[in-house]
């Protein structure tokens, strides 16, 4: 983000307060909106004029905070419907360029998508991603997801019984829309394979792929006879 943006944050919970502090430190102008009087009063002692008291889902409260000149609106209240509504009006009514919404309950994710609210951040999903990375039984690990660009990068461990172990990369018939980009091998670190490279059990392979191909790749790199 360039310098000197005006950012409105809805919700002065742990996330909102710390976010405001960081953004203020980086030189941005910030207004936090909080509707719990006690919370507002305690945060106001530190943030002073950078916090306003009110319900951020009320349009006049957003207008009082200067939403029409905001470069970004971040909705991080503890209520998903509030976050959806705030982002929807910020985007559609006040034509704010960038919005970020917090998802409290991951089951509400489809609703954020239905209302066109993106990007959204879900703490539960972030922790799940980390778990995937830590727990190899999950098989396939998402390293990068760019839904807008329709691009994903995944990592997968080739098990002892992987059907591609022992095959030359040049002979692999990768599913259409996917590409092997790197191999991490014990003792050798990561390297970009050539067609001559022979895959070994224990290799971690990195592939770039179109969204939706995960299952196909799991089978492709998975144990023999799963097809």
């Amino acid at each position: 983000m360039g310098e000197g943006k005006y950012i409105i944050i809805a919700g002065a919970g742990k996330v909102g307060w710390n976010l405001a502090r960081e953004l203020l430190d980086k030189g941005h102008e910030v207004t936090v909106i909080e509707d719990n009087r006690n919370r507002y009063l305690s945060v106001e002692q530190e943030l002073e004029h950078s916090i306003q008291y009110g319900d951020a889902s009320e349009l006049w409260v957003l207008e009082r905070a200067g939403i029409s000149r905001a470069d970004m609106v971040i909705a991080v209240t503890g209520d998903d419907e509030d976050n959806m509504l705030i982002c929807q009006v910020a985007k559609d009514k006040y034509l704010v360029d960038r919005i970020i919404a917090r998802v409290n309950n991951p089951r509400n994710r489809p609703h954020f998508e239905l209302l066109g609210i993106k990007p959204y951040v879900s703490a539960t999903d972030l922790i799940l991603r980390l778990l995937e990375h830590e727990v190899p039984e999950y098989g396939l690990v998402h390293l990068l997801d760019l839904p807008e660009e329709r691009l994903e990068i995944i990592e997968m461990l080739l098990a002892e019984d992987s059907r591609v172990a022992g095959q030359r990369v040049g002979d692999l018939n990768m599913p259409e829309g996917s590409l092997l980009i790197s191999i991490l091998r014990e003792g050798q670190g990561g390297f970009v394979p050539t067609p001559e490279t022979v895959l070994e059990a224990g290799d971690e392979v990195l592939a770039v792929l179109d969204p939706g191909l995960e299952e196909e790749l799991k089978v492709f790199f998975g144990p023999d006879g799963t097809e």
Partner: protein
Amino acid sequence: MLREGHEVSCLDEDPEAHARLEVNLDRSWEDSGGQFTVGTGLEEDALTAAGIERADAFIASTDGDNTNIVIAQIAKRRFNVPTVIARILDPLRAEWYEKQGVNTICPTRVAIEMLEKEVLEAAGSG
């Protein structure tokens, strides 16, 4: 609406709400032709269980404006219910969403108009 021969299905997160439906009914809610499902309007499973897929009309009237605005849009965009109405207490939000194509009823607006009318009539007759 049940009395007028329509089929009515209520969805509420509070199982106790069922008792309220039977106030002033001679028979049980179900025997009168009603349906009752426990759940919230944000749960697609609950909406499906309540029969949203074959509904001609959907009314979002929980006690939360934002919840109603969100679930009305789910009913309309996700389930293609032909008629969707949202109860929005806040006149400003009601006005904006009405413009966005969400049918809204704003009880605050209606009450203000009725009160205004009463006051003017009383003042006129006095």
